[in-house]
């Protein structure tokens, strides 16, 4: 009777092969006869037999001496659509290749796996402790031929055998489906921000149920990678002390897995394992430690165990606490958890970046508040200022403070550092200068006081401030200057040809306690131009990364300022010059400068 395709019952064969190569041929012939009885054609028979023989040969050749008493199990399942094999071995297992390539033509070995891969449509390898399963499948090319009917007794036996094998397969498959289902369930409810711990706890509780374990212990590597900290555990007795990663102490199972990057199977009844923290918490248990990574970086370890009785046989070589299928589920769920850990950490970093952005905003606000809204009006003097921040907030600031009827104190300073601390120091400096009206006309004394005030705080955080304090008196046409390690002030006057770059030799603020600052005075004449700036000007980069340079700045100053009538014209010309230099490139540092000219209209 011809069976309509797709409606027949699957047929199953289960065979055990003793660990002896000579037994492989006869068993493969039995399988061949079974396949022929299921209507497989010549080509299918040839392909399946060869792939099966290669699989079983490997299972026998690589069985360690202690596993040679255990047979290799062959399970074959045929349907109208497919021929499927599972070969259970007791070897140490191997890494299933990502790609299957033939060895060089003159190589005498290395073709077995290639043949299995090539002769089947699907193939994979489940690794477990003391047992692994090679599974491969061939899709059938044609409808099965007419199959001779069996006797009722044969049919009954065949059905019973089919049911037994299918039940076994279903058990293994269902654990795979359960793990998939668990992943889907947990994917839908990916950890909420800051709730990774709860998420991990619930996922791992589910995992212990799926694989029939009794307990789990999840450790994550600390931020400095110095130790593994318990992150989640099935009960409080497993909230063990951190495990140092770098110490030379006894290597326990978890540490071994973390350091060797391999799964480690353990039995806490093994003599000598009592110093293992797990053995102390769980004296009679078997299990596996699975390390997990993000790229090359160790994220943590997951340990899953099952209690055993103290008196049961202790054979750590062959103990199969978890089947290959269960071990595979543990691996899959751990790797899924690893992705969630990475996601959660990225989320934390995002929050951190957000906090950082907020900090910069605050710093920006402080800095904006430092810049005078309006420059003071000083008879006989024309002032203009420009301040532009680079991407990160810096500590540049300028100020102009009236110091009496006729003079003005000009300040340009640069706090070395970024963010809120730099802005805070700038604010303190600004306040300290404004709070000492009695010495405003003495720039050197002001710097000395500011240094004494700020020294302790600045040196604690390894920061310092450079500054120029220039007192300009248009009535006396004089400039009094004190410098704290700042770049030179440029001045041109009608009293001398060219220009001068002035800087008195003072140390930056915060470098040395109780230091003094020299002061120098210059006569300005009737017509003069001053430029006070921070080094963001001379350090500005062009599109090719070349600095503008002090020399260029001085050349520009010498060539240009004589043609500018007002401070504002000098400022506009300099901004234009900087735009020309930087081109499309954005600012690499803050740009702050003050321009001063005599005011011919007063």
């Amino acid at each position, binding site marked *: 009777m011809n069976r309509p395709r797709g409606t027949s019952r699957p047929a199953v064969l289960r065979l055990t092969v003793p660990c002896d*190569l*000579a037994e*492989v*041929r006869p068993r493969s012939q039995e399988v061949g006869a079974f396949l022929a009885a299921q209507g497989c054609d*010549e080509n299918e028979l*040839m392909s399946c037999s*060869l792939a099966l*023989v*290669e699989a079983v*040969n490997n299972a026998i*050749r690589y069985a360690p001496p202690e596993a040679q008493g255990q047979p290799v199990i062959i399970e074959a399942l045929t349907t109208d659509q497919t021929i499927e094999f599972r070969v259970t071995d007791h070897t140490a297992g191997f890494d299933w290749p990502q790609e299957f390539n*033939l060895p060089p*033509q*003159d*190589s*005498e*070995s290395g*073709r*077995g796996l*290639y*043949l299995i891969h*090539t*002769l089947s449509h699907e193939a994979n390898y489940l690794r477990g402790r003391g047992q692994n399963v090679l599974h491969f499948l061939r899709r059938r090319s044609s409808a099965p031929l007419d199959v001779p009917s069996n006797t009722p007794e044969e049919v009954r036996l065949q059905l019973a055998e089919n049911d037994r094998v299918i039940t076994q397969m279903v058990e293994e498959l269902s654990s795979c489906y359960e793990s998939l289902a668990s992943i889907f369930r947990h994917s839908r409810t990916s950890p909420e921000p800051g709730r990774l711990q709860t998420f991990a706890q619930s996922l791992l509780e589910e995992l212990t149920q799926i694989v029939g374990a009794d307990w789990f212990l999840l450790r994550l590597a600390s931020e400095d990678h110095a130790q593994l900290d318990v992150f989640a555990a099935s009960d409080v007795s497993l909230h063990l002390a951190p495990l140092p990663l770098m110490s030379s102490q006894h290597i326990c199972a978890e540490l071994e897995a973390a350091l060797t990057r391999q799964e480690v199977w353990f039995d806490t009844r093994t003599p000598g394992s009592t110093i293992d923290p797990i053995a102390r918490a769980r004296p009679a248990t078997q299990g596996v430690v699975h390390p997990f990574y993000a790229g090359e970086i160790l994220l943590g370890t997951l340990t899953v165990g099952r209690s055993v009785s103290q008196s049961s046989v202790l054979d750590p070589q062959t103990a199969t606490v978890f089947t290959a299928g269960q071990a595979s589920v543990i691996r899959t769920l751990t790797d899924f958890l690893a992705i969630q850990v990475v996601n959660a950490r990225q989320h934390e970093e995002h929050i951190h970046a957000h906090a950082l952005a907020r900090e910069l905003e605050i710093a920006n606000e402080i800095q904006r508040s430092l810049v005078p809204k309006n420059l003071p009006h000083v008879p006989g003097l024309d002032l203009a200022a420009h301040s532009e921040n680079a991407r990160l907030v810096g500590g540049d600031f300028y100020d102009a403070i009236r110091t009496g009827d006729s003079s003005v104190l000009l300040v340009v300073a640069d706090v070395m550092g970024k963010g809120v601390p730099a802005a805070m120091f700038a604010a303190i400096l600004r306040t300290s200068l404004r709070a000492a009206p009695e010495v405003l006309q003495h720039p050197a004394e002001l710097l000395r006081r500011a240094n004494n005030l700020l020294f302790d705080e600045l040196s604690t955080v390894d920061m310092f401030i450079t500054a120029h304090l220039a007192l300009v008196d248009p009535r006396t046409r004089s400039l009094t200057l004190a410098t704290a390690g700042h770049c030179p002030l440029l001045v041109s006057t009608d009293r001398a040809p060219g220009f001068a770059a002035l800087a008195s030799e003072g140390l930056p603020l915060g470098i040395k306690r109780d230091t003094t600052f020299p002061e120098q005075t210059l006569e300005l004449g009737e017509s003069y131009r001053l430029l006070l700036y921070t080094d963001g000007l001379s350090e500005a980069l062009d599109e090719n990364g070349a600095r503008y340079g002090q020399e260029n700045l001085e050349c520009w100053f010498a060539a240009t300022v004589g043609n500018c009538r007002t401070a504002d014209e000098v400022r506009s010309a300099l901004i234009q010059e900087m735009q020309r230099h930087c081109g499309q490139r954005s600012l690499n540092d803050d740009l702050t400068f003050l321009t001063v000219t005599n005011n011919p209209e007063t």
Partner: protein
Amino acid sequence: MKLEAHGDILRVTGLKELDVTNSTEVCASIRAALNPAQKNIEIDLAQMNYLDSSGLGTLIALHKTACSREGVVRLLHPVPAVQEVLKLTRLGRIFEISKA
């Protein structure tokens, strides 16, 4: 398995299978039978219905032996199953295969 000398050829016939159980032994026997004048090895595969990856290893080992004597390995009358294995592993090119 029968080994016969024909001038510079050693002819191997009657080999029914070449697999993990006998490949080492077969290789050793053929090498031992080669006399200094024989550089070519002809293996009649007409009766061989079974060849696995270990058997392929033996054929390659014999190919190397023949090459060192500036000779070749000729495979005669391979059955379809054996032809298929040689094709899958792309070894058809390194042997002289005579189907007739």
